[in-house]
């Protein structure tokens, strides 16, 4: 799995006036995509490359970090500001994989060779498990098993070992980004952003979007900035949205909307500014701009080449290390526990109609890292206690939907999204589609007075033991 390549790379240095920079405090690293491509960075078009832009150089200068690659893109800056993680293909026919290189161009090495087509990678903080010797830094890699498959996020150590899949969303997980609290943020490719711990536990909705949310990034003051794509194409850009990490479902604001153009790949430039890619219309190319994060005004150009799209710009320099994670996940287990304190709770109120059972629908996934086959399968049912609680053992790493049933077996409510548990995870829910800012009531519920039971296929064995 791991191929570590230490190679000195011959750097191509380009200099010359392209577009003058304006008060950029730091060097930038970004991806250049040839103008003739469609601007969708996800497919890693041939000829795309990672460059470093140094505004201190007279007239600015570009240094190509990946001259030996057929294509390279989607870079991330290490926390110490010395290394760059990127997705690249050395040969045009190679599968995209994850590489790391020093900002000075030295120390190129391949981080992963799989498990499929890598489309994005970001640095994560540390993870610790009961079997770890010490906390270790990780990277998150967004992977498609085959072109066209729904992508999933994997984590691994910096040397590519300990590869572990952490998302199981049937429709895929796109554009991973790390939050300062250590969680991973990703887009479902439809209308929502989700968070998940870096061990795959506690997947939770983070924000909702009017269109496909893309390219989230946590900026200053813990505001998450993302793009609401103007079209179905995830790389096409759109308007810039901000939500507070603290109240992400209730603080949505439009930071910048542009009538004919599009904004893409935001990142923080200090606490109060954002660095984005912007193009004024479909005919132009994306260039690098900055704007004031709070007001959204002053879209000021930093760099824009007429022959290239410039995307995924990141300031070069150290940044805060997100919080690490300690995990109780045990990879040798095959099940986890899902428990709910009160199935009657929806929003902030309790429904009246008697809930007798919960049906669990699953969508089996390939554990070898493959894509997710569509279609629900019945995993089983569990009885709901009189206080609305239930607790059950469920297969781990399996996307699930829950359906509440009345005593006649009629469907009362049906979950529209998916969740999963990791092996040995004890995932607690407060209610069914409860207000996401509600905390659990302090009750020792009936379902937890005996060990969680396995799901049953026949109704008789799911009746309450009470």
């Amino acid at each position, binding site marked *: 799995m791991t191929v570590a390549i230490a190679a000195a790379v011959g750097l191509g240095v380009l200099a010359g006036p392209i577009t003058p920079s304006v008060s950029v405090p730091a060097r930038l690293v970004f991806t250049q995509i040839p103008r003739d491509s469609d601007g969708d960075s996800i497919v890693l078009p041939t000829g795309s490359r990672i460059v470093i832009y140094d505004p201190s150089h007279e007239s600015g200068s570009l240094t190509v970090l990946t001259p030996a690659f057929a294509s390279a893109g989607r870079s991330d800056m290490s926390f110490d500001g010395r290394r760059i993680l990127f997705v690249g293909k050395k040969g045009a026919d190679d599968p995209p994989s994850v590489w790391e290189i020093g900002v000075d161009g030295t120390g190129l090495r391949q981080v992963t060779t799989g498990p499929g087509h890598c489309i994005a990678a970001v640095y994560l*903080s*540390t993870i*610790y*498990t*009961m079997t*770890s010797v010490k*906390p270790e830094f990780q990277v998150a890699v967004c992977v498609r098993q085959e072109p066209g498959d729904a992508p999933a996020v994997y984590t691994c150590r910096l040397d590519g070992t300990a590869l572990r899949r952490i998302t199981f969303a049937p429709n895929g997980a796109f554009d991973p980004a790390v939050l300062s*609290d*250590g969680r991973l943020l990703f887009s479902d490719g439809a209308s929502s952003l989700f968070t998940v*711990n870096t061990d795959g*536990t*506690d997947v*939770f909705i983070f924000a909702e979007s009017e269109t496909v949310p893309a390219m989230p990034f946590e900026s200053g003051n*813990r505001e998450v900035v993302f793009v609401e794509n103007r079209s179905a194409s995830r790389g096409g850009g759109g308007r810039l949205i901000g939500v507070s*990490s*603290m*109240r*992400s479902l*209730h603080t949505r604001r439009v930071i910048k909307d542009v009538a004919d153009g599009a904004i893409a790949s935001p990142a923080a430039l200090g606490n109060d500014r954002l660095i984005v890619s912007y193009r004024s219309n479909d005919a132009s190319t994306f260039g690098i701009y900055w704007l004031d994060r709070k007001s959204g005004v002053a879209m000021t150009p930093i760099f824009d080449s007429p022959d290239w799209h410039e995307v995924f710009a990141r300031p070069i320099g150290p940044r805060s290390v997100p*919080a*690490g*994670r*300690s*995990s*109780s996940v045990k990879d040798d287990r095959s099940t986890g*526990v899902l*428990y709910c*304190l009160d199935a009657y709770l929806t929003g*902030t*109120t309790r429904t009246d109609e008697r809930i007798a059972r919960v049906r669990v629908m699953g969508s089996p996934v390939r554990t070898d890292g493959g894509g997710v086959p569509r279609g629900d399968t019945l995993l089983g049912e569990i009885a709901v206690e009189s206080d609305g609680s239930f*607790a059950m053992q469920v297969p781990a790493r399996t996307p699930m939907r829950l359906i509440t049933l009345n005593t006649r077996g009629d469907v009362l409510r049906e979950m529209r999204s998916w969740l999963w548990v990791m092996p040995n*995870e*004890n*995932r*607690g829910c*407060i209610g069914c589609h409860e*207000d*996401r*800012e*509600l*905390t*659990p*009531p*302090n*009750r*020792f*519920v*009936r*379902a*937890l*007075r*005996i*060990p*969680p039971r396995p799901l049953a296929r026949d109704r008789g064995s799911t009746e309450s*033991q*009470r």
Partner: protein
Amino acid sequence: MKRAWFLVSLQAALIPPADRSLAQERRIPLFVGRNVCLECHDASEHSAGVCTLEEIPEHHRSYRSLARTEASHIAALCGVAKSPQESRVCLGCHATAGEVGPRWTAPTFDIAHGVQCEACHDAGGMHAEASCAWPAVPREEILGGIVPGDRATCKECHGEKPSHTAVLKELYRMPLTEALYKTPVNLACSPDGTRVYVVCQHSNSLVVVDPAKGRVLHEIGVGRQPQDVAVSPDGKTLYVTNRLSDTLSVIDTASGAVTDSVGVGNEPHGVLTDATGEHVFVLNTERNDVSVIETERFSELKRLAAGRGPWSLALSEDGASLYLSSVRPNSIAFLRPSVSEVSVIDTRSRTVRNRILLRDANMLQGIASVPGSGVVLVTLMRTKHLVPISRLAQGWTITNGLGVILPDGRADQVLLDEPNNAFPDPDDIAVSPNGRVALVTSGGANQVAVVDIEALLDTLHEATAAERQEVLPNHLGMSARFVVKRIDVGTNPRGVVFSPQGRFAYVANALDDSISVIDTEGYSEVRRISLGGPDRVTAIREGERVFHSADITFGRQFSCRSCHPDGHINGLTFDIEADGIGMHPVDNRTLRGIYDTAPFKWEGTNPSLSHQCGPRLAVFFTRLAPYTPRQLNALVQYLSVIPRPPNRHRQERGLTIAQRRGKLIFERRATSNGKPILRARRCTTCHSRGYKTARTSASVGTTMWLDAPVDIDVGDLHEVGEFGYFGMVYYHDTGGANKAFDAPHLVSIYGSPPYLHNGSAPTLEEIWTRCNLYDEHGVTSDLTRRQFNDLIEYLKAL
């Protein structure tokens, strides 16, 4: 022989008259000392038998060794706050009769002889008396008056003790710098606003600060571990509570002199005067009562019953009522929600007018009344101790907020947390003189929250009754309506107070020895005034900061202190994920003086504090990265020196007669009818010597079906009492195997309810009356009521 007989005959005369008849009735022996023993048990040919143990010089020196410098360093690691030669824990192994005290020794006894014959054989008074009468008394009676010693007795003291190893072999020394820290915890303003009086817990002092000039004027020594300060309405007198001295210091503000020291109840904390200044009210936190003191002669008029752990006070605007917060929840049934009390005192009649209960709340600390509204605000936690600690997101484990007491006595609760950004350990609250703004300190986040009181009350008024009961107390989004700002201040902010005109507010930053000055125009910190503590941060101090910081927890939801206030307990049990959810509730255990009491955890699986606070803590509690090695080392150093307060159930002269009788029951080897008690069923087998723990695990029949589920019909177990008595009956009746649990130390055990591994015994008594149905946790079924009460009295004295 004659001399021994003569001295022992004095036994009755030595016991206080009030106790004499009982002592004689029960025939409680005195300790007579080695010289009396040697009168018969010498090496002569007429000897009655010589101890098979060789003479050990160290035994004779053991008491005197407690006067060595090293002993004080060891004592610090043992949680011993007093001199080692006065500590029951130290004397338990370094002397004879140390535990019972001088009341139970004959004039022939000299504690300076160290470990004497009676250290192993127990008090020999009756044995000596019977021996003198021989052959008139049968040999059995003579032998019956003495405890046969064996090698097992030696092991009770001669086990490995980390504190002794650290000091004697690893040369650990308590840093001198440690004694120089101030640790400001509370403050008050003079009526004219020119002085801020800061109570400094560590330096046992009150620091007087000129806030305008930003400098310390002078420092006044008070009692041990001062906690709170109040200013008389005329500004001429200060009152400072001294928690470990059980006193109230009275200070003349003009001279800065301590003019009086008034004895109050156990562990006084909050203090406040009434509006006239004629009475001062002192909250005795350990005794759960309030001392009412008139200020003319400083005599205590009466004690009023408060909630559990009364903490702080607030005077209503009209001066008619005092509101008291309670830091610990009222005694709660097993696996039931916690309920905490705000007591209301009528200041004119000086009686308790109301007891307002806040359901699901604990750690009620800061309290303040809101001028112009009749509303009282109190800081609180809402600990989800009945919900498995399986995640932290969504306020899953602990939430932090305010109680809002309305003029009609109804109580609402709201949260100060916001999603993914908690407001951990809300310690104190102050309300601006105009009643518009409240400032709340967060000791765990090093912040002060600015609360718009009008917006807070609007939030309540706009909600339905059901929402006020179920939604507002549990909703993380509501704080956005009334928390307008959070201000970063110093390390571990505790007390907060407004200046009289409300222009400034002052915050006591406990762990960086400073006060923050907050300008209320922009609500920002404009100055930080150093109180003069040392710049150097010792490992212990660093560990104390780690202990009080919520930065170690996902979403900054809680710190170590959140569950271990003052290094002690919050009185709750928890469902930890490691052993399965919903099952295996475990009682929270004190951290005071535990360095020598390993192993830790109720299962006894953590051999050291480093293990206890190591990665496991991160995996199952905090969920973030484990402590760094440096943090862990510092934390362990701090935990190692958390002292325990003096035992207020123990008199200076030693055990009372009831306690002494209880000790005999504790140490008995046969039942009341003479039937031998199996070694495994004796108290002393698991609870031996100094700390009263053999540091082993034992099965004592307290396993419940929640601990080791068995296939039983639990259909009828949903009503009151289902989890205590019946839980164990059902478990036993199904033949389930008992689990072994760590034998806890019993030092100051009276202050750590609830009891047993799962907290199923709310009181000491219930350990046996409800949870020892089969005599597996010691044989107690034969005890009379008085014997049982004696046993409890003895346990309280440990």
